[in-house]
């Protein structure tokens, strides 16, 4: 049983870290977006991401049973203990990079939450059911912008193509399999995640076709993958900001 809990904890941490770090990236746009409407939209998505991270960490703390709170898990781990996708660490760069990163992640997240909403683990299925609705809005937002930018001006099309090239090496890591996932599938905690990759490519191909983006750009050599603790150079900087208060004033209540 201890092993099952370890696996579930690891899985919740992976998902929680994905949402925390992507929420962090999105929140960096706050006050700096291309339009006021996008300032609101990106902040709103960031807020959803942080909210989902909170639910996942709180549950992870319960599963672990060592009394760690959502904040202990969010702020007081070392770099290698964060098990997020490298994709979510990728720099905001320009608006096109931010949108493509979001599209890739949100299409994945919506499909994943759908599978997890029928999880044998009741708590996880509840978190998933709520998150799925939010993810479908995020997909709508990033897909609409992908289409606008892909089929907008020459410049926007070039920028979106560049963003796809930058993010494409981080597609495969979303679908990597490992022993943790296999055991969770076997015990019915998560459904069949092997179908994710094909479904993701179908959705993206549809959006790219409307956006007039060449799907060949997706074909590239994968970077990263098989999760635990691998990061880009950005991660240390992200954590330096994220953890600043908790590290500077240890043990305080805020």
């Amino acid at each position: 049983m201890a092993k099952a809990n370890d696996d579930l904890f690891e899985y919740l941490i992976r998902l929680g870290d994905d949402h925390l770090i992507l929420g962090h990236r999105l929140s960096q746009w706050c006050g700096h977006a291309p339009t006021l409407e996008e300032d609101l939209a990106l902040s709103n998505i960031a807020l959803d991401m942080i909210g989902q991270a909170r639910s996942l960490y709180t549950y992870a703390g319960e599963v672990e049973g060592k009394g760690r709170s959502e904040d202990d898990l969010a702020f007081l781990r070392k770099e290698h203990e964060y098990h997020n996708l490298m994709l979510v660490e990728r720099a905001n760069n320009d608006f096109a990079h931010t949108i493509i990163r979001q599209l890739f992640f949100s299409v994945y997240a919506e499909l994943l939450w759908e599978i997890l909403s029928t999880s044998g683990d009741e708590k996880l299925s509840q978190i998933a059911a709520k998150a799925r609705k939010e993810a479908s809005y995020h997909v709508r937002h990033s897909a609409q912008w992908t289409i606008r930018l892909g089929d907008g001006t020459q410049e926007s099309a070039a920028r979106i193509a560049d963003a796809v090239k930058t993010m494409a090496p981080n597609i495969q890591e979303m679908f990597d399999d490992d022993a943790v996932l296999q055991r969770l599938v076997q015990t019915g905690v998560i459904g069949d995640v092997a179908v994710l990759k094909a479904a993701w490519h179908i959705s993206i191909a549809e959006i790219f076709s409307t956006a007039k983006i060449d799907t060949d750009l997706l074909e590239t050599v994968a970077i990263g993958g098989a999760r635990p603790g691998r990061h880009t150079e950005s991660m240390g900087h992200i954590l330096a900001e994220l953890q600043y208060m908790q590290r500077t004033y240890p043990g305080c209540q805020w």
Partner: protein
Amino acid sequence: MYSQGLIGADDSTHEDEEFLARFQARIDAEEKIEPNDAMPQGYRKTLVRQIAQHAHSEIVGMLPEGNWVTRAPTLKRKAALIAKIQDEGGHGLYLYSAVETLGVSREQVTQELLSGKAKYSSIFNYPAITWADIGAIGWLVDGAAIMNQIPLCRCSYGPYARAMVRVCKEESFHQRQGYEILMMLCAGSDEQKAMAQDALNRWWWPSLMMFGPHDSESTHGSQSEKWKIKRISNDDLRRKFVTATVPQAEFLGLEVPDPELKWNEKTESYDIGPIDWDEFWSVVKGNGVMNKERLEARNKAWDEGAWVREAANAFALKSQEREQLEAAQ
């Protein structure tokens, strides 16, 4: 958030006596003026200036708080701060829409902000350097904003008055949130409490300046008051704010940084020491710690977003053409 009393308004107007008297009679009868109603040019210009200045303040006000989003100490605080800043952006949106009801586009007033021609609340030219500043901004800056804005809910111009009703509700939530941040600090370690006191020391006087110059110095208060755009004078609002806020500081165990602060039995309000108006005007004129950075940040966001807005427009045009073509076939 909100700006100090209106700076540099030109409320001159050139309509005939009869028109002005009819308009004034509507105002005196507490009728709301609506976008399509006839109104004196001076009334329209004053409102455009005031509402745009208010909108710009909301937008620039996102920057000092945004500066703390990535470093917020807990996930709950981070979420609350993002939600608050999002509210401020939303206020900016309603207010720009209110400006548009007066026949001036958002782009037009935005250009005036970016060029440095339009003003925004000077308080945002002060830096938010510690986490306690996020508490102090909510408590004091939003608190002063509420004091300014509650009378604006009864402003004679309908769209502005109605926008203020919703804005005030959200601001009051922000103020409690800011105060609660400081309550936590004041109940915490010595270092946390010192952080709270330091924030009060730095934000107290600029917050009082948010109400604008003394009534005796204010050049355009009277016409605005006659038109019921402004309903309570700068000094009266400031006095109300101080009277409401001093007991809150005492409850926190913090000291208000004014050695001359004294309860006045006769007026049943606090008398305060002299406000440093040289500092106020110096910051208004661009010499605050953050003036240059704030405008640069707004300009950078605008310039770097140009290709996005162009693409969105180009796409909208293409979609329209495609629809027309389909309809024709």
